[in-house]
C-alpha cells in the first residue's frame, strides 16, 4: 500500500548554502548529513516536528547525473524553472510574515484562492514552492 511520499528531492546549487537557508531561514531541522563514498553528500532536512516528509537537498554535480545533464539541471534551477512542490502551512499570513522578516524571497504575497490562502516563495537556489494553507485541510 502506498502511503505517501517520504522524501522529496530538491536540486540545489550549493548544499552548504541550502543547508543554511533551510535551517536558518525556513527553520527546518537537519535529519541527515552524510558524506558517501561515491562523493555524494546525503543531506536531508524536514520541518520541525514533522514525522512525514523529508527534503533531500541534492547537488546535481555530485549525483547520479552525468556532467552535462547536471549542468542542465543547475541552469534550470538557477533560472527559476523548477518547483519541487507545495509547502503546507496552518497559517499562511503569519508564516509569510515571519519568513519574509528572515529574508525569504516571496514572488507572491499571501492571497485568497478558491482552494485556500497561497503565497509563492523561492529557496536560495531558485526553486519555487507554493506556500499554501488549504481549505478544509490541516
Amino acid at each position, binding site marked *: 500500500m502506498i502511503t505517501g511520499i517520504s522524501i522529496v528531492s530538491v536540486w540545489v546549487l550549493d548544499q552548504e548554502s541550502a543547508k543554511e537557508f533551510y535551517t536558518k531561514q525556513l527553520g527546518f531541522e537537519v535529519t541527515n548529513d552524510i558524506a558517501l563514498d561515491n562523493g555524494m553528500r546525503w543531506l536531508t532536512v524536514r520541518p520541525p516536528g514533522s514525522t512525514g516528509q523529508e527534503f533531500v537537498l541534492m547537488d546535481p554535480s555530485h549525483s547520479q547525473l552525468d556532467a552535462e545533464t547536471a549542468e542542465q539541471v543547475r*541552469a534550470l534551477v538557477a*533560472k527559476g524553472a523548477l518547483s519541487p512542490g507545495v509547502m503546507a502551512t496552518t497559517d499562511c499570513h503569519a508564516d509569510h510574515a515571519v519568513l519574509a522578516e528572515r529574508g525569504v524571497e516571496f*514572488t507572491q504575497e499571501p*492571497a485568497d*484562492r*478558491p482552494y485556500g490562502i497561497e503565497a509563492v516563495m523561492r529557496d536560495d537556489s531558485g526553486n519555487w514552492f507554493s506556500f499554501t494553507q488549504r481549505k478544509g485541510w490541516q
Partner: protein
Amino acid sequence: MTSRAGVDVRSLQCLRRARDTIDRNYAEQLPIAALAEEAGYSLGHFISAFEAAYGETPGRYRSRRRVERACELLRSANLTVTEVCMAVGFASLGTFSRRFGEIVGRSPSAYQREAARVGGPAPIPGCFALMWRTGLPASAVGSD
C-alpha cells in the same frame, strides 16, 4: 562560474531575480533599464540575455503577464475593458488590445463576452478585484 557547457549559473540567477521583480510588479511602470542595472547588465545585453534564458524579451514577458492577469480580471471581475487595461499596467487601450489579440486571439471585449456567456456573470465585484495585487490563477475562476 561558467561551466564547460557554457552555463553561467550566477547570470541566470540574476536574470531570474529580474523576472521575479517583473512578476511582483507587473502592473508598475518599472523601466527595463532599471531592471538591467539591478541585474548588473547593460540594457542591450540584459534584453538579449533575458531572451536567451526565457524565450522572449523582458518587455514582451511583462506584457504577456499583464495579458494573463487581464484575462483573469475579465473573467472574474465586473470591470470594464478600460478599467482592466489600466489595472494590469497598460498605458494605452490600443497597446492593450493589440497585445491581447496577439496572445489570446480575440479582442478583450469579445473575450469578456464569451466568458460571461459560458461561465455566467463575473462573480467578483470590481472594487475587490482592483484591490488585489496578485490576481487569481487561471484555473481558479471561470468555467472549465
